[in-house]
């Protein structure tokens, strides 16, 4: 290989440690010393130095983003037990030991493709399967919210289009974490955008990309907290529908490498390595780009047409790392030769390594048997979709790159994919004691404010408040399959627990999508935050009629810098909760993603986000007509509380009002919860339940208020009729109303179904605590029988809607 004006040879064989690190830093490779040394050894053995193309290819393929080096590495973990003593252990591949292990042990026949392709795939109907994937796009969204969020959506849609031989995107779900919208402008650094601007930009990006692609956005959540001011989180998810016969790829030597879709430009270079680097105000801007949904729509439509004619044997998207990752993945088991000068470019003057790793949007790579080329080109040409043969898959087990007939890279596939040295990292976890509300502080609040006022204050918190302003910008009807929509109720403005979609309009089969997220619990213990998120995702899904026996989960870890022992310790705790919960609920994980280094360095200080676990759930149901919504339906109907209420105010919205975190984080009794979910699923399936809503942020009071104003009816609750696992009950009506204990539901039942419902719920924790009233008030009678809360539902609704009415 010779140096030209297009390709440089980088001398690494003669470098010492400092020299190697300098090369990594200078070229934004994000490779550490061990990795650089491994590369050095490889090229010393070959007796030559690498080209810039080779070095960039290795950096992309070995990036944290693509390889999950931390979670699959070796972790030396020590943790403090309740009695204060320390335990240590070595964890070899955390993901394999927890999240993936649960799936392997459950070994459910309806999990068709897990943890190996671009998305997880589960069985749906006789002929069809469902693919589901959730990704993050945090750093790009912090810098350019509109473009960052749009390309986030675009990327996850391409994951679905590139799973197996391609699935059709049918539903989007989007979850965001932002700084508080009322953050004073002068309180934040000039180097970042204001949280409200980020929020509006992200929403506009999601709206424009999702709507223009003709995919309904039916599910989501938005969390607001100061820890996300400098580093927002943007989760984008897509569900796809695909015939079962197309769930796997088989690339053969001789197949042509066909690049389809957008042209390659200099935009988005170093996205994969960039996601592993902490942000600061000098952060490289080439990582930011703006998507073009119309191009992606055309690519999607033509590709699925070619799929149905069996014209190609493999497909994947150009995500992080661009061609380098896409061709590398497809050719992993055989080999590939690519002529970089043949790739269609947006403009001239790009260097070979830039072409190879550019992350320009809307590109897919296909493996096409030569005999099918003419027919597949006809399909793309007819719709003005650009498609170009840029190379061929080979049997050499090597990746060979050429530019103007000159070889610019030759790497062994084995080294490229399995050569990355494993990380060894230290992790530590200990329980922190947080301040508890003092009696005086609490009574000051209670003394000044009635329970009604506290309820209103919680309803107006941005995290709890109505997201209608956001939801209404999204198309949630396109494709015509939306059954339970994000807003529901008498006048379609109540908050749905989950969304239900019927992707095949000739069948009543459908699926439910829901999510669970509450990072405030993680301040106390990431284990219970994760368990709570899983419980929340599942109860949301059960609320609308999802089937707990046919439910799969996705994890999204968002943490700070894993070089910090405590950050990684939190990840270990969270991963273990994933295993325990998935096993107990029998809900396997089918795909997941981690986004680490969510930190921002400001004036020498590193600001980390609150560690956040998003759990997304998908459930297959056989008849969407049995689904129900959360708004109460008829006066005189009975209101039951299902599940146990403990004094679990740690991380709650109530303590947030007092400016506190507390310690009593909501826990989960998995066995009890699973049994309750199963009984409730059955009762809903039998048509015994008129409406059902889960208890989450703000607890019983918020759930009751939401059901009432969504149904435009009143509700009466008698606390004396419930049984509460709370000591010193008399003083603790506040705890009863605002505790956020998991695995609880409020359920509305017609009196004529009372007997049947109670029979169906036999053995569960059930209390008949109220009824639906005709007058439009929410009334709570305390343990002593006195009215302790009485609010007009219109007033409650207005408070809940006002906050985010932008």
């Amino acid at each position, binding site marked *: 290989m010779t140096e030209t004006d297009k390709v440089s040879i980088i001398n690494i064989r003669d470098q010492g440690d400092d020299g190697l690190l300098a090369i990594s830093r200078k070229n934004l490779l994000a490779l550490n010393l061990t990795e650089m040394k491994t590369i050095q050894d490889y090229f010393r053995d070959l007796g030559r130095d690498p080209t810039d193309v080779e070095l960039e290819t290795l950096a992309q393929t070995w990036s944290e983003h693509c390889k999950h080096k931390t979670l699959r590495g070796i972790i030396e973990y020590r943790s403090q037990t309740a009695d204060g003593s320390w335990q240590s252990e070595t964890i070899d591949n955390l993901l394999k030991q927890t999240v993936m292990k649960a799936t392997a042990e459950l070994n459910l026949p309806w999990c068709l493709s897990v943890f190996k392709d671009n998305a997880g795939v589960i069985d749906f109907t006789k002929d069809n399967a469902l693919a589901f994937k959730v990704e993050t796009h945090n750093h790009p969204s912090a810098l*350019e919210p509109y*473009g960052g969020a749009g390309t986030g959506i675009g990327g996850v849609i391409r994951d679905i289009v590139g799973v197996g031989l391609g699935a059709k995107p049918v539903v989007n779900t989007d979850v965001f974490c932002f700084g508080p919208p009322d953050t004073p402008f002068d309180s934040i650094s000039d180097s970042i955008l204001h949280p409200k601007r980020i929020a509006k930009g992200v929403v506009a990006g999601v709206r424009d990309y999702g709507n223009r692609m003709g995919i309904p956005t039916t599910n989501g959540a938005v969390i607001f907290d100061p820890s996300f001011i400098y580093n927002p989180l943007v989760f984008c998810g897509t569900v796809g529908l695909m015939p079962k016969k197309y769930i796997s790829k088989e690339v053969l030597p001789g197949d042509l490498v066909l690049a389809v879709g957008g042209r390659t430009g200099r*935009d988005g270079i170093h996205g994969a390595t960039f996601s592993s680097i902490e942000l600061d105000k000098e952060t490289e801007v080439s990582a930011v780009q703006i998507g073009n949904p119309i191009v992606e729509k055309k690519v999607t439509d033509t590709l699925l047409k070619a799929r149905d004619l069996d014209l190609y044997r493999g497909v994947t998207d150009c995500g992080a790392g661009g061609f380098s990752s896409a061709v590398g993945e497809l050719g992993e088991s055989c080999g590939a030769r690519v002529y970089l000068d043949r790739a269609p470019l947006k403009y001239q003057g790009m260097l070979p390594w830039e072409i190879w790793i550019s992350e320009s949007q809307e590109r897919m790579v296909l493996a096409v048997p030569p005999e099918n080329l003419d027919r597949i080109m006809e399909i793309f040409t007819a719709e003005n979709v650009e498609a170009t043969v840029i190379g061929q898959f080979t049997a050499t087990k090597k990746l060979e790159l050429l530019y103007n007939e000159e070889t610019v890279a030759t790497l062994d596939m084995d080294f490229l994919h399995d050569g990355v040295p494993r990380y060894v990292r230290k992790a530590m976890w200990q329980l922190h004691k947080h301040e508890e509300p003092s009696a005086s502080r609490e009574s000051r609040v209670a003394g000044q404010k009635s329970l009604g006022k506290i309820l209103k204050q919680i309803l107006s918190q941005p995290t709890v408040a109505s997201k209608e302003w956001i939801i209404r910008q999204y198309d949630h009807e396109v494709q015509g399959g939306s059954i339970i929509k994000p807003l529901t109720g008498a006048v379609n403005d109540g908050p749905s627990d989950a969304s239900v979609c019927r992707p095949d309009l000739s069948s009543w089969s459908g699926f439910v999508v829901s999510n669970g997220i509450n990072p405030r619990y993680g301040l106390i213990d990431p284990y219970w935050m994760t368990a709570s998120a899983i419980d929340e995702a599942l109860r949301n899904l059960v609320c609308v009629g999802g089937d707990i026996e046919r439910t799969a989960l996705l994890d999204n870890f968002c943490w700070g810098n894993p070089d910090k022992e405590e950050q990684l310790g939190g990840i270990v705790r969270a991963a273990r909760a994933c295993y325990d919960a998935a096993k107990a609920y029998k809900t396997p994980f089918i795909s997941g993603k981690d986004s680490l280094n969510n930190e921002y360095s400001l004036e020498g200080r590193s600001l980390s986000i609150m560690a956040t676990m998003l759990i997304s759930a998908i459930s297959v149901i056989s008849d969407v007509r049995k689904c129900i919504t959360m708004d109460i339906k008829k006066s005189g109907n009975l209101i039951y509380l299902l599940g146990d209420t403990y004094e679990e105010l740690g991380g709650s919205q109530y303590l947030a009002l007092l400016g506190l975190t507390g310690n009593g984080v909501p826990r989960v009794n998995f066995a009890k919860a699973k049994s309750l979910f199963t009984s409730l699923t059955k009762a809903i399936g039998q048509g015994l339940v008129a409406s059902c809503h889960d208890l989450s942020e703000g607890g019983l009071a918020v759930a009751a208020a939401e059901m009432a104003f969504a149904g435009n009816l009143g509700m009466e609750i008698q606390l004396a009729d419930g049984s509460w696992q709370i000591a010193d009950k008399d003083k603790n009506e506040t705890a009863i109303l605002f505790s956020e204990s998991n695995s609880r539901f409020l359920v509305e039942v017609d009196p004529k179904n009372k007997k049947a419902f109670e029979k169906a719920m036999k053995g569960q924790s059930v209390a008949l605590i109220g009824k639906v009233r005709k007058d439009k008030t929410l009334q709570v009678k305390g343990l002593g029988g006195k009215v302790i809360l009485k609010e007009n539902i219109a007033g409650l609704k207005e408070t809940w809607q006002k906050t985010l009415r932008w």
Partner: protein
Amino acid sequence: MIYRIEVGYKKNILDALGESVNKDIHDLGIKKVSKVKSVQIYKIDADLNFAQVDELCRKLLIDPITQEYLVNQPVEHEAALPHILVEVWFKKGVTDAVGDTVITGARDLNIQGAINSVHTGTKYVLYGQKLTTQQAETIARKLLANAIVQDYNINQGKLA
């Protein structure tokens, strides 16, 4: 030939972008702005004659019910009121998907003649007594343009 086309909402038609920017300006703590008008700008470098450009505007760039346009001159606005103009453009090299789509759209309309490039930008007319250019600068920086992908320029209209 380079054409500059401005597209704005007709009088009495809701300018949603303008209104939402106006609200955001108030959130920013600047109370001197009374109204905002948004105008979409297209800078087209093409071998087209005026009639062809006019056709492109009518058939592709505007909604004839709600919008109006002018070629090579600014669309009507209440110029008698004190105002400041802010224009926001993508930086060189940033994908301009709308601009790219205009080229495709012209081809689909069968408009003959080479279109070399289309750049899109947005003009904001900030109306307000006593609004200073310094305040407009703050608005541009904090709300209208993201320095990472966009440039802006401020034009003093009629100052009070």
